[in-house]
């Protein structure tokens, strides 16, 4: 089985979000970038398939050279090869088009992406990629088993979960649950050394026109100070009379 894991290069979850250039650009100053957490669960599941069922695992990112340390980390975790599509991502559609080109060229059976990246939260790339490639798609996937060409997936729905049966080629939008948090891997020294010599291919992008464009960013308005109360009756009064939520 040939697996492609899509890796987004995103600000660490503890990052403070700021903007520059008259609020038109994300301010990367002092920000540490990591593998998108939803993708990390997918990468770990891909490693499970590699070790238990036999699979080759490639990772891909659409981004500039600054994303290579993130791809190297994925290689250190155990991926066999990495691909970087040399394009600064603009919108979800143009990223999906780049990934579709990689998938059609590489002939992957299974593509694992995160259900969304934690920066733009678009949640569209995996589904668009599946549609562009004519592959089956399961979103918010919390369990995945592969038996030959058949796949059984469980996805989270509002208020429960749903078991689905489908076949390869398959794209999933994965999240926590694909593996447990405690199963996530930290690269060890051997993995880091091996990653240095693993192939990292740089591909030039195919033609793709962005359909959406961010014109301006804005931060939420500052909040007023908390009203502290001493007793629960005062809280109920405030929630009823002032906030009018009960």
């Amino acid at each position, binding site marked *: 089985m040939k697996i492609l894991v899509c890796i987004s290069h995103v600000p660490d*979850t*503890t990052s403070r*979000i700021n903007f520059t250039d008259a609020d038109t650009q994300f301010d990367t100053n002092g920000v540490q970038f990591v593998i998108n*957490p*939803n993708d990390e669960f997918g990468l770990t599941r891909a490693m499970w398939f590699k070790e238990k069922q036999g699979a080759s695992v490639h990772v891909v990112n659409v981004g500039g050279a600054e994303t290579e340390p993130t791809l190297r980390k994925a290689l250190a975790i155990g991926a066999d090869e990495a691909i970087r599509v040399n394009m600064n991502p603009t*919108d*979800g559609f143009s990223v*999906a088009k780049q990934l579709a080109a990689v998938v059609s060229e590489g002939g992957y059976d299974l593509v694992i992406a995160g259900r969304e990246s*934690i*920066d*733009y*939260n*678009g*949640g*569209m790339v995996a*589904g*668009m990629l*599946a*549609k*562009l490639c004519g592959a*089956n*798609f399961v*979103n918010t996937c919390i369990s995945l088993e592969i038996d030959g060409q058949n796949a*059984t997936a469980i*996805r*989270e*729905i*509002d*208020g*429960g*979960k*749903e*078991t*689905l049966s*489908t076949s390869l080629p398959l794209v999933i939008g994965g*999240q*926590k649950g694909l593996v447990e948090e405690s199963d996530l891997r930290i690269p060890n020294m051997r993995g880091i050394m091996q990653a240095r010599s693993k192939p990292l291919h740089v591909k030039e992008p195919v033609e793709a026109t*962005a*359909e*959406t*464009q*961010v*014109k301006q*960013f*804005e*931060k*939420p308005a500052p909040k*007023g100070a*908390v*009203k*502290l109360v001493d007793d*629960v*009756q005062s*809280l*109920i009064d*405030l*929630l009823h009379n002032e*906030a009018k*939520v*009960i």
Partner: protein
Amino acid sequence: MSVLVYTESEQGKFKKAALEAVSYAKGIADMMGSQVTALSINGGDASDLGTYGASKLLQVEDGSLDKFQADTYASVIAQAAKAEGADVVVITSTANSKFLAPALAIELKAGYIPNAVALPQSAAPFQVKSSVFTNKAFALSEISTPVKLVGLSKNAYGLHEAATTCNPESFSPELAGSSVEVVSVDKSTDKVTIADAEVVVSGGRGLKGPENWGLIEDLAETLGAATACSKPVSDMGWRPHSEHVGQTGKPVASTLYIAVGISGAIQHLAGINSSKVKVVINNDPEAPFFKAADYGIVGDAFEVVPALTEKLKEFKAQNA
């Protein structure tokens, strides 16, 4: 020319999120001098949609669509959008809508903005504000394609009555079978879900163990609320990760969010930024959550929460 809105329903009743989406679609239609056509799939009563401004309802009734299938539903919505010549298609941000949205966008060759939080700033060019960085910021984005697809965040726009006569019409799309088959659905129907809840009561490590979750559940039951938890609680297995609220868990956009024994890590706060009123109960006055809260009580959860539950029961009885 019209605005098409896909209205999700459950057991023959439109979801509140769907009615909110109709209100939002009516707001866009008014900006464009256009009208709202709603699409329902095995849905409910057309008059529910007329209340919020839909003047036409395309009703799809087909037993093969009883179970949600993203690719088939996307195809049905795309066919309706094409039949109506819709310039704008509005959907919600439920798990199912987010599942079908990418396929729908490709079928319609439509630029897609998810997590919209307000009416478009302008109709031409079409610019919409949406939540990004897990509610830590907003982006004003422009869609450049002829057809626009917008996903509305829950509780971002609210319900706005705009009484209209809604004329139902039967709509019969071509249905292709799905290659993703639903084997089983496991849904807790007796509990309010985080996705639908107006009120969420959430617990953290301050509860000290899963055996104390009765405190949270009693308060939630009194308020008709959903229960939720912080990441450490989910990681330790005290609660299922479907209840984990935060940057790598679920976002919450409730009217009232009550956090008990949660210190307020930046990742958790990102997940609840869209909630309107936040209440924090914590025995540590320095807990960062107090800076993000509207109301707070510094005190022991094991004393404050049962007292709050009892007083709320009295309040409910008096205001029933």
